[in-house]
């Protein structure tokens, strides 16, 4: 008791100082509370929570953008670190969040949900807060808590509507799978703590402690932690849940899960790996193990399984789920080629990926609302009936494939660039294999992505759908598709932030 007394003022001061860097999160928290309160006291169909959420997003966005200028700072006695990359991730989350909340607002499932969407807004804000914390965590405890926060929120969002047994099934699979993974991760974290005596990622004791034990020990422990992160990323072999969950979950939630938490997973992966990678590399190579080999195998497996698995699918959401596994593998390439350029490439890819994946799900949802089907076979002849929609869809799919004239190409290009650059420097054969796998799976991805235009434009349907109008998401998917083309020509508007 006495031992601690001298530290108390310091902690308090530190906490007070940190609040200044914590504005976006505070805003989100306040928003969360306000939404909870409003929801409790307003009618079920009230728009209040929605607008409150929107406002908190915007305000948080303003604060976050301000943070871009700040230097990297430790907050709350090393619980968090506010640095440039974290802020970028937070911006991505906000962008995804903004699209998501609009998507949710205009989604038929959510609108017709008897219990209202107010709770969804509050859960969403909490998840967003969790994601922000994930991006900033520099402490094992914070990592655990923030991941749990995002996970629990995600389980709730998946099971939110539970309109049929498919949705509940998705939710239960997600929750059990997630709980197992986080339990394994907790066990790993406890051992890291045991070996190093610290929870702080940036502390030198962490590396020292890990390098004192035999590589078997550190390797196993780190892998145990990576299970939890891998689950968030849905990287092979922790991907099994994602096709089922993505298929079963309400479409806006799927769109959100495949972008936001995934990006947060990358943020935390970088946080977690950075001390391990940036340590004394010679020592690491000797004492720890070669992460790159493991990550490379996982990345290649993700690309292969994701892309090849997607060919098989007829359900568009399931297909996109597999494709997002493939994209994760591709993104891992940038992690492996970790460097300044690699980070920029990664960020750029994540932004573009978020836009295009969101857009893809929005478009798939649009088609679903127009035709009532999620099956690729039912896209036959849609190009004729809904030219604008399908043209946008094609742009998005082209971007997902990574072909010009879309930003998806630039993104892919940058990843390849960083990989090759890193290869130039290191000569690691893994990178070469990764690039080849990436190139091959790009071709493969054409098979399934182009199933949609193939059906929509090249095939005809006997009985066209009745007269239906686009939902109010129309301006959003148009903007997103156009953005994908515009960003090819002026990638600077994103890159200048990086």
């Amino acid at each position: 008791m006495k031992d601690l007394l001298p530290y108390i003022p310091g902690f308090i001061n530190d906490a007070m100082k940190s609040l200044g860097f914590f504005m976006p999160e505070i805003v989100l928290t306040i928003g969360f509370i306000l939404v909870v309160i409003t929801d409790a006291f307003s009618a079920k169909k009230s728009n209040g929570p929605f607008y409150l959420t929107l406002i908190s997003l915007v305000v948080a966005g303003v604060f976050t953008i301000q943070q871009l200028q700040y230097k990297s700072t430790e907050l709350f006695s090393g619980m968090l670190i506010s640095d440039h990359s974290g802020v970028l991730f937070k911006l991505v989350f906000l962008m995804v969040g903004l699209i998501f909340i609009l998507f949710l607002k205009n989604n038929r499932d959510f609108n017709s949900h008897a219990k209202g969407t107010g709770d969804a807004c509050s859960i969403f804000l909490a998840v967003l807060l969790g994601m922000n914390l994930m991006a900033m965590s520099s402490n094992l405890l914070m990592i655990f808590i923030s991941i749990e926060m995002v996970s629990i929120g995600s389980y709730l969002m998946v099971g939110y509507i539970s309109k049929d047994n498919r949705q509940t099934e998705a939710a239960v699979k997600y929750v059990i799978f997630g709980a197992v993974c986080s339990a394994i991760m907790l066990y790993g974290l406890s051992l890291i703590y045991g070996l190093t005596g610290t929870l702080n990622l940036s502390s030198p004791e962490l590396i020292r402690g890990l390098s004192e034990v035999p590589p078997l020990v550190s390797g196993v422990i780190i892998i145990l932690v990576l299970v939890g992160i891998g689950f968030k990323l849905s990287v092979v072999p922790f991907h099994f849940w994602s096709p089922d969950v993505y298929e079963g979950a309400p479409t806006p939630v799927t769109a959100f899960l495949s972008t936001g938490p995934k990006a947060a997973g990358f943020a935390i992966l970088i946080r977690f790996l950075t001390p391990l990678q940036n340590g004394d590399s010679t020592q690491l190579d000797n004492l720890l193990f070669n992460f790159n080999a493991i990550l490379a195998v996982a990345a290649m497996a993700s690309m292969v399984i994701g892309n090849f698995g997607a060919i098989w699918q007829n359900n568009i959401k399931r297909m996109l789920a597999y494709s997002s596994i493939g994209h994760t593998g591709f993104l891992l390439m940038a992690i492996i080629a970790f460097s300044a350029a690699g980070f920029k490439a990664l960020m750029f890819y994540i932004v573009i990926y978020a836009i295009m994946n969101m857009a893809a799900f929005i478009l798939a949802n649009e088609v679903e609302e127009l035709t009532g089907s999620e099956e690729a076979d039912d896209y036959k002849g849609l190009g004729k009936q809904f030219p604008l929609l399908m043209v946008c869809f094609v742009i998005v799919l082209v971007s997902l494939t990574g072909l010009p004239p879309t930003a998806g190409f630039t993104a892919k290009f940058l990843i390849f660039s960083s990989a090759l650059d890193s290869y130039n420097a290191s000569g690691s054969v893994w990178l070469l294999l990764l690039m080849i796998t990436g190139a091959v799976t790009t071709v493969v991805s054409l098979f399934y992505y182009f199933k949609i235009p193939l059906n929509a434009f090249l095939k005809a349907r006997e009985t066209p759908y009745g007269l239906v109008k686009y939902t109010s998401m129309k301006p959003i998917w148009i903007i997103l598709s156009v953005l994908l083309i515009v960003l090819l020509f002026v990638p600077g508007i994103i890159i200048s932030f990086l």
Partner: protein
Amino acid sequence: MEALSQNYIVLAILAVLLPVAGFLRVLFIKNTSRAFFYAIAGISASFIISAYIFTAVWNNQTVHYQANWFTIGNTTISIGILINNLAALMMVLVTGISLLVHIYSLAYMKNDPLIHRYCGYLGLFCGCMLLLVIADNLLVLYMAWELVGFSSYLLIGFWFTKDAAAIAAKKAFIMNRIGDVGFLIGLFIIYTQFGTFDIQKLFGEQGLVGSAILHNGVWIAASGQLPAMWLTVAGIAFFMGAAAKSAQFPLHTWLPDAMEGPTSVSSLIHAATMVAAGVFLVARIFPLFNETVLLFIAITGVFTAFLAATIALTQNDIKRVLAFSTISQLGFMMLAMGTGSVAGGIFHLATHAFFKCLLFLAAGAIIHELGHVKEKENVDFDTQDIRLMGGLRKRMPVTFYTMVVASLALVGLPFTSGYLSKDAILIHSFEWAKSRGGLFKIIPYTALLVSWLTTFYISRLIFKVFFGEWRLQKKLNAIFSVHESPAEMKYPMIILAVFSLFFIFSYHPLLFEKSWILSGFDQAESLQRINAFHTIIPATVNLISLLIIYLCYRWYVKPGFAGVAQSNFFYRLSESQWYFDRIYDILIIKPVTQLWTAVYWFERRVVDGIVNLAGSFGIISSSVSAWVDKYLIDGIVNGVAVLAKRIGDFSRHFQTGRLQHYLVTMLFFVLTFFVLKYFTQLL
């Protein structure tokens, strides 16, 4: 002089272009009525120009003019005209005969609805032929060479609605293409070795070809060197081109089929001019040929002559007899070339052009008139079958007499032009063989034999057509009337008959050496003149020829000749044209057809198949991956279950939920890593 030369150049170009203008006209104007007028006007002008140039050039000067055509890399390819004795002679020959054939065609083609095309094609042919003759550049020569082939294709297939004509045209073009490939390979070698196509530079005095030397198996020229083999290859390649065009063995089979075209065309192109282009080519590039190639040419020539003559013996189609005769005579010319007598070859080319043209025109007159009969009497018979002719001497006297003159020239009896040129070749070949001795003697003796065979088949033709009774009437048991052909046809024939006599070529009826054409060319190889040959050979040839003519008269005119046994092997061999078409069919066409069928099969089944396999690779791999996703999980579990069955008995109850499949698999992978880690650490 310079200015005059300029005039010749313009004139020569005009001579080429005027006939072609007729062709261009056809492309745009479908008017048939005045087609002939323009065509004849064009060719007449061309003829007059040619004659004018001839008088100026012959043994006097060489007109050579060049302009840059295009530059490729650092090499400038020129285009130009080179009119020397050879070219000038050919010009006159071509335009003169063309003019006559044009006039002849006026009547011959009168009723054809497409005569404007006919005129156009003829014009194209004349232009290209003239270009071929005056080109100073092997590349241009080659172009003209193929273009005459093309116009020949058009003309053979002129009656394109007849399948036989269309097929014959195709055959002619493709066989010529085979030769052209040879020609082209020759061009490659020339260009690689000398870097130019200029005929004057290559083959003129102190030309590049002449000054190139063979040293240690290397053929060294100023601008490059090749292994010596390529000199021979070049010679043979060029000769391959010449052989195809001049219907030499083994590329001769297109010419008889080419008789499907109008007879006037046959006479102009497939007897007098175009087919002689091969001989012309050999003369143009003569310095290129080395001993080996020359011998090759000589042997090919004499063999072709023999082959064609034997075939001509038994043919019943009047045009085919003449066609084989043409091949045979072209063989003679080649023989002359091969034995080094360029002059003799060209001389025979000139004389042969006239009398063979005449033979065809006469045959055409007969066919034409019989065609009238066929049309008028509305009976169906083959107008070209000599078995259905006979006794036409009285009915078509002009045709008869002119054709006899031409036949005599072909046989080579004194006082005809043929006598001179044929003797030139025969005697020269004997002298040539004498100087070499040994087996080389087979060549002149074969030539001798061929000239008797020639006598036989042409006599048979004349006697069968003009003497005796008209077998058609007998066969159909009716009376038909046939009369002399109209003036447009008659007069060209008469003119040609005059040109088949000796005085056009030499003032001395019996001594070929006095001929002015021979004096226009250098004797490539000076052989020892053996006087005995100059008397013995003509005498022997002619005496025996007369005997043969008598024999034929006895056989074909006098009754009582039973005919040769048609089952005789030699007869069948001859009649079926030595089975060449059949052999080619079996040896070349069938295998090639099978080849392409096989290749296409390969394409579809294998190449495309592999690709489709690769394409379905995606599907296969996806099924693999789906298999991984779907069955590996089950599979591992089931696999372990099978193991469990062997251990215990509770495997039947083995049922786990799917979510747990996922977890098991996931952990399985994690464990795999752990185990790996564990064991690598132990290592």
